[in-house]
Structures are given as structure tokens and as C-alpha cells.
């Protein structure tokens, strides 16, 4: 009955939350790049030890990209279809 459960619940382990499909990359890449640039700039400006790292949520595609996953996407432009990792990664 797992499929039935999925139909009526919204949990962290839903497939859309635990992977970032490759077709989303072109849409998200400018957003991620811009955000990373802003974070680096503000770190320098405020003399922060750690840069702020904001998760982003794309409602249209139900994609949640944490800072770690964001780095993985940006690091590997030929990233695989599914990027594993938890929400905070």
C-alpha cells in the first residue's frame, strides 16, 4: 500500500524531494549561480567566517535544493539524472 500512502501524504522521502532531475538544471543553474555569487560577496563584505548558505525551493517542479546539493549541481555540469542526498545536503 506504499503507492497509496504516497498519494495522500507529503513526506521528505518523496522522490521529488530526494533527487534533482537533470531537466531542471537549465532552469535552476542561473538561480544557483546568482545565489552563490551573492553569498560569497556578502561573506567578504561582512567578514563572515562561514558564508550564508540558503536552501532554495522551486514550487513549480517541487524541487528542494540544499546548499550541499547545490554545490554538487554546480560542480558537476554533467551531473547524473538523480543526485542522491538528504534535504540538508
Amino acid at each position, binding site marked *: 500500500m506504499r503507492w497509496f500512502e504516497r498519494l495522500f501524504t507529503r513526506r521528505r522521502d518523496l522522490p521529488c524531494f530526494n533527487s534533482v532531475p537533470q531537466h531542471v538544471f537549465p532552469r535552476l543553474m542561473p*538561480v544557483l549561480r546568482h545565489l552563490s555569487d551573492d*553569498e560569497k560577496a556578502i561573506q567578504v563584505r561582512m567578514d563572515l*567566517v562561514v558564508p550564508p548558505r540558503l*536552501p532554495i*525551493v522551486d514550487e513549480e517542479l517541487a524541487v528542494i535544493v*540544499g546548499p550541499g546539493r547545490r554545490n554538487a549541481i554546480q560542480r558537476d555540469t554533467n551531473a547524473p539524472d538523480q543526485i542522491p542526498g538528504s534535504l540538508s545536503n
Partner: protein
Amino acid sequence: MTSPINARHDLFQRLYFDERTQRDLIRGSIGTPVAAISFSVFAFGTLVTEFDMTQWRQPASIFIIALACGSIAAMFAAIYHVVMVEWLFVYYEPPDLHELLAAEERIRAERPDQVETQLTELMTASYFIGYQQYLCGNTVSARNRTWALRLVMASLLQQAVCFLLLPIHLAGSGG
């Protein structure tokens, strides 16, 4: 007296949440143009039913056709702007607890005397970045919503003139 660090933090925290609220307000307010577009579509149905195509050479008929074409163009442009209100909108969340704990650990290791200040400034910076992104997104969305509303009004106005001319057209066709 509030320290500059806390003042900055309070300001950008408030601005961040205000812009988030603004986002939802803009989203909620596109209901008006959408309702007007639905009304406009049904009004077109009535106009088309009443219009006598055999009399299209009459000046009133030509005027009605021209206005109806203008109204349809304005309506499609309004639909485009309604879609663009939500297009490519991304939400920016403050750092989660894992991030904050990792940051705190690193600050303790590198600048143990500035843990509180650095963490507060980190949150201020996060709110500021989120606020900036929302501000840009909301500005574009608000522009699209405004244009959607204007175009719907233009479409309805042209339709209203069409309906005013319809009796003249029907009189000419003997209807």
C-alpha cells in the same frame, strides 16, 4: 539601546518576512484578472452568437470585428502576464539547523570570541540575500499583475463598445 548588529538583524528579518508575505499577496491578487478573463471569454460567446456574419461589410460590423480582434489580443496578452506572475519563481529559505550547527562549530574553532556576533551576522546576511531575491521576484511579478489587469480592462472595454454597437449592427441586418 539596540546594538548595530541586532538592529541590522531585526531590520532584514522583518524585511525578509514582509517580502514573503508580499509574494503571497501578489499570488492571491491574480484572482481578479483571472476572473475577469473568464467573464470576458463568456461575453465573447454571446457576442459571436449575436453577430450576423452576412452583414460584415457594414461600418458598424467592421468596427465590431476590429474591436473584437483587439479585445482578443488584449485578453491573450493578459493571460500571458498572468502566467508570468508565477513563472520561474523560486523560494529562498533561511539556513536550516544542520547548516547553523556546522557554522557554529567552525566559528568556535576559528573565532571563539565572536560566536554570537558571527552567527547573528550570518542570519542577517541570509535574510538580506533572501529579501533581495524576493524583492526582485516580487517587483517583476507585480509588474506582470499590473499589466494583466490593465490588459483585461482594455479587453473588457473593447467588448463593451462591441456590445454597444451590436444593436446598430443588428438593425442594419434587419435582426
